[in-house]
């Protein structure tokens, strides 16, 4: 197993180098000049411009700039944001928990509803429940989530007035972050009204972000379940006179969930992409909004390092999913 893990990690090295080259190159070919962007509307004298160019190493040959960049990244230095003048990694660390909280809630929502829905649809195959569930799932899968978010705002915030429109918590609460997860922090402070406020802020964005994963998970669970239910060992179990519940829960479910775990893992990349839209609609202060704001502000350093960090997270999650897959499915390890 250790061998397998090491081999998988070694295979990732060229991809990681490729990603760092991409992130670096993207930012070099972006139109505009980083120094002028940094100077902002005040402008900069030609002498000062040269000094800054030298200070940030923009006068060096391009390959040398890349290796300098790579070297500082390896030491954990992702540069200073041109817009806020704060280290990129600090900005990332303050914003990342917000995205994590959102993504985690969305995924929980998707799994808790998607897996049982898929299982029941498979067991009751062809029934009205199956047909409706799969119809809804395909609709969810086809959903433009930015529109879905607006619709929910119109209904729940505009018409019913149940939920707030933007942000993570009402402005009347100010809590010093402990974990950065608003739900956990408010509980740690024992501030019940703040917890309710945070929850009300979280619900709509989480539903919006979780919609597509929910649809994918329900569909995948159903088809995995159908496949397993057709296997010989399930028929044998039935023939032996086992109760239908036991056949489903013990024999079928365990095997059907193996591909579902992979599917759930693969949603993480999509969640980070969906976070861009969801966070924009709900003005959620996370990394999705941070990235799109930085792209429009031409904050090169943030775009470059943000891309790199996000790609590394996606790769790490994919690796974990693969390893988990090998762990729960011994057939893979043998090969």
């Amino acid at each position, binding site marked *: 197993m250790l061998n397998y893990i090491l081999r998988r990690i070694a295979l990732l090295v060229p991809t990681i180098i490729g990603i760092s080259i991409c992130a670096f190159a993207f930012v070099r070919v972006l139109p505009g000049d980083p120094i002028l962007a940094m100077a902002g509307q005040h402008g900069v004298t030609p002498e000062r411009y040269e000094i800054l160019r030298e200070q940030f190493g923009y006068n060096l040959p391009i390959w040398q700039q890349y290796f300098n960049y790579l070297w500082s990244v390896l030491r954990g230095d992702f540069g200073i944001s041109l817009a806020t003048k704060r280290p990129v990694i600090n900005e990332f660390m303050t914003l990342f928990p917000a995205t994590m909280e959102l993504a985690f809630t969305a995924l929980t929502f998707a799994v808790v509803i998607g897996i049982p829905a898929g299982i029941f649809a498979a067991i009751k195959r062809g029934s009205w429940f199956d047909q409706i569930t799969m119809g809804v799932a395909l609709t969810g899968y086809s959903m433009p989530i930015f529109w879905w978010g607006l619709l929910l705002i119109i209904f729940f915030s505009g018409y019913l007035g149940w939920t707030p429109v933007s942000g993570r918590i009402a402005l009347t609460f100010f809590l010093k972050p402990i974990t950065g997860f608003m739900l956990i922090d408010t509980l740690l402070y024992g501030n019940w009204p703040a917890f309710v406020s945070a929850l009300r802020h979280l619900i709509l964005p989480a539903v919006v972000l979780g919609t597509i994963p929910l649809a994918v998970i329900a569909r995948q669970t159903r088809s995995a379940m159908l496949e397993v239910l057709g296997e010989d060992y399930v028929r044998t179990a039935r023939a032996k006179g086992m109760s239908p519940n036991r056949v489903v829960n013990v024999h079928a479910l365990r095997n059907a969930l193996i591909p579902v775990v992979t599917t759930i893992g693969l949603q993480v*990349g999509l969640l980070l992409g969906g976070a861009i839209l969801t966070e924009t609609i709900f003005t959620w202060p996370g990394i999705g909004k941070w990235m799109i704001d930085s792209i429009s502000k031409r904050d090169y350093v943030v775009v470059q390092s943000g891309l790199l960090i996000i790609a590394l997270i996606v790769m790490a999650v994919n690796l974990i999913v693969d390893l988990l897959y090998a762990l729960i499915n011994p057939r893979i390890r043998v090969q």
Partner: protein
Amino acid sequence: MATTNTTASTSPASGLREFWYYFSVNRGAVIGLTVFAILVFVAIFAPLIAPHLPDVQYRDALLKPPIWDPKSDPRFILGTDPVGRDILSRLIHGARYSLFIGFFVVVGALVVGVVLGVLAGYFRGWVDVLIMRVMDIILAFPPLLLALVLVAILGPGLFNAMIAIALVLQPHFARLVRAAVMAEKSREYVTAAKLSGASHFRLMMVTILPNCLGPLIVQATMSFSNAILEAAALGFLGMGAQPPTPEWGTMLATAREFIIKAPWVVTFPGLAILITVLAINLVGDGLRDALDPKLKRS
């Protein structure tokens, strides 16, 4: 459903009939295909169908609600937007953009992906390693984020957005084709063609590729709907088609501030996106069931 089909003959006409048999069993797929055909019709004849021009501003009818509202203006069935343009006409013209985007992106991604996938699967070795590593790099970025950065580099606009989306979607084709080519390559008919002196190009494109078509068609359908969604998302974020283009995502972006005051300005463009994407996905599901013999049983 029957697992053995002893009467299947090999002539193309009966292949098509068999395909249609499996496809039309799926009611959803037939509905999807019908809706899609209507959309194509609407897109082609948009100037004839639309009651108004998409860009004409009726200054005496700003933010008129749809026809079923008492305050509506009978000239505008789905109401008007903040500058008095007829929403229905803009939606009808928008169908042209969405279908064109889907078509262009799929053709682009398909051609590039197929060429790269065939090369990788056929030659293996360093060609394979190089191509597939590049595909891995593209797939490591969330698609929408990568498309956003690419559009920022190329400059916002519909055409650049389409290029970016095609680039982001193409690794899926390359991976699919590579796997299929590797599976087909060792089959006897390929060896036979090789022995009779077929060139590399002929082996790749004429002998092997047609036998990988099934999954490719399904992937193309799914990419078609993905492309429409991503292009609308880019338009919504202000990085795709630019106003006043009646592209559905762009229409949503400009309507955002009116969501409480005039919900219909937001509702209809999104509904148009949803219906289009849903129709294509229904067709995709039907195609998968009909073309993938492994799934025919389930």
